[in-house]
């Protein structure tokens, strides 16, 4: 009897969005148990994996929960939060955690053990697109990509992105930069002397923003060049070694699928 009445209770209130809260947690990676136990073969020790993914992602998502709780962003996933906050100067604190959480997840999704990564290859379609931007072989691309990653003076990311016209581009982002919006790519370093090329790029970004241009760039491949990604296993000066190893552990099956194909 009691049960019957209970079942007939309207389910309404629970569905009202005002009562919902989104707690950001560390996303589950495909091989997370194996990685936690053994690290990523050829890239991370178990301790290094813990720092770069388990701990750091926990740090980012926990902060994201704390900072979005009770705000308009509380129901949004990191990707939407980063888009929502990218243009707001007073919300860059939130943007940082959203952008980092999204980028780091994007980066770890494409990693696998060296032995299984070896069995995957970039698709012919991807290689053709790379050839279009004057990178005829995968080694030529590796060279350019890792150079971009190793040449910045601070923390950052390097992406291979697809532009709206389907051409590819290597995009370097300083600090918590995101590939999704040109105003927050943070590709320019204005700390030292600014040359004419940088100045032109800066003015171009300003002009785009003033005209309210939209950005349809999508990332295909990312490398985390923050210290947290390598300091545990490679030390403060081990960035180059780390980058070489990351390259060996890229699961190209995942990257191939990110490229839009008709």
């Amino acid at each position, binding site marked *: 009897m009691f049960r019957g009445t209970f079942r007939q209770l309207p389910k309404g209130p629970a569905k009202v969005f005002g009562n919902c809260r989104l707690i950001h947690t560390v996303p589950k990676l495909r091989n997370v148990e194996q990685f936690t136990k053994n690290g990523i073969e050829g890239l991370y020790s178990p301790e290094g994996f813990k720092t770069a993914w388990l701990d750091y992602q926990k740090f980012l998502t926990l902060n994201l929960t704390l900072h979005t709780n009770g705000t308009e962003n509380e129901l949004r996933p990191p990707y939407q939060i980063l888009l929502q906050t990218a243009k707001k100067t007073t919300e860059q604190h939130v943007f940082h955690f959203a952008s980092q959480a999204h980028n780091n997840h994007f980066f770890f999704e494409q990693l696998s053990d060296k032995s299984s990564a070896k069995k995957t290859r970039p698709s012919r379609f991807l290689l053709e697109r790379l050839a279009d931007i004057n990178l005829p072989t995968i080694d030529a691309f590796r060279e350019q990509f890792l150079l971009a990653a190793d040449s910045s003076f601070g923390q950052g990311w390097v992406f291979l992105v697809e532009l709206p016209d389907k051409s590819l581009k290597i995009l370097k982002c300083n*600090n*918590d930069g995101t590939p999704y919006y040109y105003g927050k790519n943070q590709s320019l370093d204005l700390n030292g*002397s600014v040359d004419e090329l940088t100045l032109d790029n800066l003015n171009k970004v300003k002009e785009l923003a003033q005209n309210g241009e939209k950005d349809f760039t999508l990332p295909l491949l990312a490398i985390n060049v923050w210290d947290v990604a390598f300091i545990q296993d490679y030390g*403060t000066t081990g960035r180059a070694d780390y980058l070489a190893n990351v390259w060996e552990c890229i699961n190209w099956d995942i990257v191939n699928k990110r490229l839009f194909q008709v």
Partner: protein
Amino acid sequence: MYRTCGKNLPIASVTRLSSRGLSYTLPTIPLLENLRVGNQNLNGLFSNQTVNELWFKRGQHLIDHLNTLIEQNQIVGSHELNELISLSFHKPELYGVHAYASLLHNLQFFLESVKPVEGGDSAIEKASAESLLKSPEISETIPNEPSDTELRQWIIDSFGSMAEFRTLLLNSAKGIKGDGVTWLVARANHADLALRGSINKSKPDVIYSTLAVMNTYNAGIVDDSIRSGQITKLNKQKAANLALQNKEEGTTIKDQGDNLRLGSIEEAEAATLFSDRKLIPLLAIDSSSRNYLLDYGVFGKQQYLDNLWKCIDWDVVQARAPSRFRQSFDLN
């Protein structure tokens, strides 16, 4: 004016002229050398391994890259690191030299501002995720205050109280997400010069009236006078070039009543805010993640900064400070 011979003032970086031209060697920081020899921790702040990573490995890494770039760019003559930083600033082609030199300078400046703390409760251990949920401290009594009364009073006059200063300093450091350094600086500007009436002298004394906290990012430098307003300057230069070009080609641009236009906020700031400032760094706090990741873990930045406060060597800070200018009257 600038007290350069304080007892604790560090040894300047060693410059040597080799047959190949200018090259640098890793400066000697006696405290760190001793720790390395004795295989000891920097008590209260860093483990021995971290000291090794931060200074002996990374310092050498920066020196190596700097020397390589100097050789590639064929920079000759003998320069102190500071001179090299200033002379390479306005040359985009020397950006690498400038960046490595500044990074090295900032790192050395930071590591020379700290001293080990014996005993005490500052543990060097990894923090857990729960530490993010801790309430911030609101205690008004704080450890490791500067003992020198003059410096103490200057800080209190500039920031309100020691507790406010500590909060501002550590929160500024905490606000840096990527690489960066938080500085305590002594500030002088022409407004102060005018007060003293020294503006009419051919070479006015630079006088320092207030202390301030500022952040620099990546290889950024403290000196405002060389780094500010360059974007505005470049844009003006470019516009002037364009106008000249147009004149030569005979095309004229319609005068859009530019004389009546109000400038942008950026232009106003560039014209007034930074042009007459002079800053002397007294204390550097490096809050880049590499400093705390190894000892304190991903969640340990607050713990690292709290420990760092206790390890600040105020004698060094005091030795770096210029003599203070006090207003003999109050404008308010």
